[in-house]
């Protein structure tokens, strides 16, 4: 994918073939000697020196500093031995040649160093260019990544080929604990979790050179994205040499932020998709529920209304027909109540219900539910005993009204006609405790917790109608409010269902400012 093989070749070429380069330098010097020997008859010694200098220069340019130095010394030796009289000896008679040797050596060394330096720079900038290109290509590949695993793989490949390092991307789960991104064979690289956590939480990179040799990741870079830190990338040099890695810190950080942006982009794609799925399924659920509830309620409304209009029709029906009409009306009203309970339960279970919580006195819903039940309570006088100065409580009035209606209905259903029902409310700890009790036979023994499950009734086969949804709905509603509900028998006889609502911090009601000379008071 990347043209990095070349890069590796180039950097190894200068070290791998060093013996070759030295032999080449020796060969070149020998060659120069061989060429110069026949020319000695025609050329001045000064020009022969030039030939040697040229050779040294060429070696410096093509083979680097060390061979150039070797060839400089070699050239001086060869020149002295083969050309300076007395020839074929290292003796020098003319002191001037010492100057020639020195200059020759100096020129060789200086040019060698200069050209070698130039060459190194050229090599380095080539490498830099290749690395930058690799970084650019990584960015391009990351922008096409569709999964976090791909991001991890692309990042690792980059590090391995460009910086000769191994890496693992660590991503936080929902609890904030970091885990290696799955799908990579990352087990090889040991992670020091504390460093990873620090890098993740502080957003700064951590390095620990000592760890590098023991197979642990030595560098922990936070994946800093525009919104927040998305994870940590742990990097370890493949050869245990951290110096090179540390010198590339800037590049590593660039790479980390590229990876971070890719991870963040994927995160938001994920969020968007999930939201869409959720919206679609919620819409479906709520449209099914409202269609069902409309389709069930419409015929029930007609049934209740038509039967009721028969009971009051003029001229009046005969006594038997009248009684029948009233019975049809009552039964369809009850059916409507049951359907209402079923739909409530479905809605509560589907999570369709969002609580419309408001601060309010509990007595208000007690009053409205007693009023709502109306005819159902004529045989059961309700006694409401509220503690003085009850605080406001935050709850959904419509739902808590359902709770009271269901409890009162149960109490009326299971206690003999004429017996009273008591509602009692008081503060208990940091909750408001409300109890609805009757004077009926009470609950059967050992049934309490099961009563709040769906379709469970106090008596298995009783003549009293009902499907056992009422208490289950009460329990669902109270739990949604963060309260609890319990059933018990009273000592003096009768069933008692009590529930709690958390008190919280009610808003302050400012007292009215009354001007003594203000409005005329009624």
């Amino acid at each position, binding site marked *: 994918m990347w043209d990095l093989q070349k890069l590796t070749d180039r950097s190894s070429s200068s070290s791998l073939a060093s013996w070759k380069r030295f032999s080449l330098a020796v060969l070149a010097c020998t060659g120069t000697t061989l060429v110069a020997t026949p020319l000695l008859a025609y050329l001045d010694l000064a020009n022969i020196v030039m030939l040697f200098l040229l050779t040294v220069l060429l070696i410096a340019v093509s083979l680097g500093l060390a061979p150039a130095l070797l060839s400089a010394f070699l050239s001086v030796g060869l020149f002295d031995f083969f050309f300076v009289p007395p020839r074929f000896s290292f003796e020098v008679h003319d002191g001037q040649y010492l100057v020639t040797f020195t200059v020759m050596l100096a020129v060789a060394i200086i040019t060698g160093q200069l050209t070698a330096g130039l060459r190194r720079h050229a090599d380095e900038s080539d490498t830099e260019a290749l690395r930058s290109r690799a970084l650019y290509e990584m960015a391009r590949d990351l922008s096409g990544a569709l999964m976090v695993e791909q991001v991890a793989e692309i990042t690792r490949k980059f590090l391995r080929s460009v910086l000769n390092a191994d890496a693992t991307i660590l991503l936080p789960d929902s609890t904030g604990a970091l885990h290696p991104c799955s799908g990579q064979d990352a087990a090889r690289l040991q992670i020091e979790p504390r460093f990873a956590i620090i890098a993740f939480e502080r957003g700064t990179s951590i390095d620990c050179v000592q760890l590098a040799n023991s197979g642990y990741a030595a560098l922990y870079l936070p994946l800093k994205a525009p919104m927040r830190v998305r994870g940590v990338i742990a990097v370890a040099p493949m050869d245990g040499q951290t110096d090179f890695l540390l010198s590339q810190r800037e590049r590593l950080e660039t790479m980390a932020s590229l990876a971070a942006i890719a991870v963040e982009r994927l995160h938001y794609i994920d969020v968007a998709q999930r939201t869409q799925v959720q919206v679609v399924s919620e819409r479906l659920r709520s449209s099914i529920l409202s269609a069902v509830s409309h389709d069930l309620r419409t015929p*029930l409304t*007609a*049934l209740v*209304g038509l039967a009721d209009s028969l009971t009051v029709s003029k001229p009046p029906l005969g006594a038997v027909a009248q009684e029948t009409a009233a019975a049809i009306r009552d039964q369809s009203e009850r059916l409507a109540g049951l359907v209402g309970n079923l739909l409530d339960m479905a809605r509560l279970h589907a999570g369709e219900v969002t609580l419309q919580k408001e601060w*309010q006195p509990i*007595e208000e819903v007690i009053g409205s539910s007693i*009023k709502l039940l109306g005819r159902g309570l004529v045989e059961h006088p309700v006694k409401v005993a509220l503690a003085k100065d009850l605080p406001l409580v935050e709850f959904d009035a*419509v739902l808590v009204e359902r709770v009271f209606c269901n409890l009162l209905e149960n109490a009326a259903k299971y206690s003999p006609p004429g017996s009273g029902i008591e509602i009692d409310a008081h503060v208990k700890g940091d909750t408001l405790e409300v109890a609805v009790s009757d004077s009926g036979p009470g609950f059967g023994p050992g049934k309490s917790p099961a009563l709040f499950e769906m379709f469970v009734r106090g008596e298995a086969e009783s003549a009293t109608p009902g499907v056992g949804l009422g208490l289950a709905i009460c329990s669902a509603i109270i739990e949604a409010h963060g309260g609890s509900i319990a059933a018990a028998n009273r000592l003096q006889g009768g069933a008692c269902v009590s529930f709690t609502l958390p008190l919280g911090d009610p808003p302050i009601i400012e007292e*009215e400012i009354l001007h003594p000379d203000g409005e005329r*008071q009624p």
Partner: protein
Amino acid sequence: MNERVGDHSPVVIVVEDEKLIRRFVRTSLEEEGCRVVEAGTLAQGLLESGNQKPDLVVLDLGLPDGNGIDFIRDLRAWSDVPILVLSARSHEKDKIQALDVGADDYLTKPFGVGELRARARALLRRQSRGGEGATPIVEFGDVQVDLSRRVVTRNGEALHLTPIEYRLLCALLANTGKVMTQRHLLRDVWGPSSVESNHYLRVYVGHLRQKLEDDPTQPKYLLTETGVGYRFQP
């Protein structure tokens, strides 16, 4: 069937898509002495409202051919005929919205004939009373309110109400039988900047009940329409 001969019998338009519901609504309103015009769709309902100049409109909010709220808005643009809304329980938002755009009262399905007739009667009475001979004295239970003198008495004894309590009582009395949404009452009594302070309203209604009702926990006159608002029922 029209018992109020001579006097023109009130015209009621029933906008409801279910034929059987229309049928019993029709018979029970006819027994109240009304002339009933049926409409199966909102479009037809709007048309009939223009033609018949009704004294009352009974409107089902869940009609298939459109939004009942828009119907109320359209109708309110040119008419202040009382509107009685029919709606299912657990649709409190719809009810509040309907009341806020101009509906006068609602009935929760399923409902009995007696309830329907009582609501219709109350709305028709309010409509016919208009400005004529409105008395400044309102009586309910053992309470007497003299609106002209701003005096409230119970069993002949003067009651002390704070200014806010009195304003709240007046707002409820001025709309006898009509459901007042919480938002509406807050705006009337506390001003437009207080429409979010529902708890104030609840606390002050509680104060009024303490002073005016026999049993404040089971009020007879100052009634709660849970999740919607309050209603004064003499």
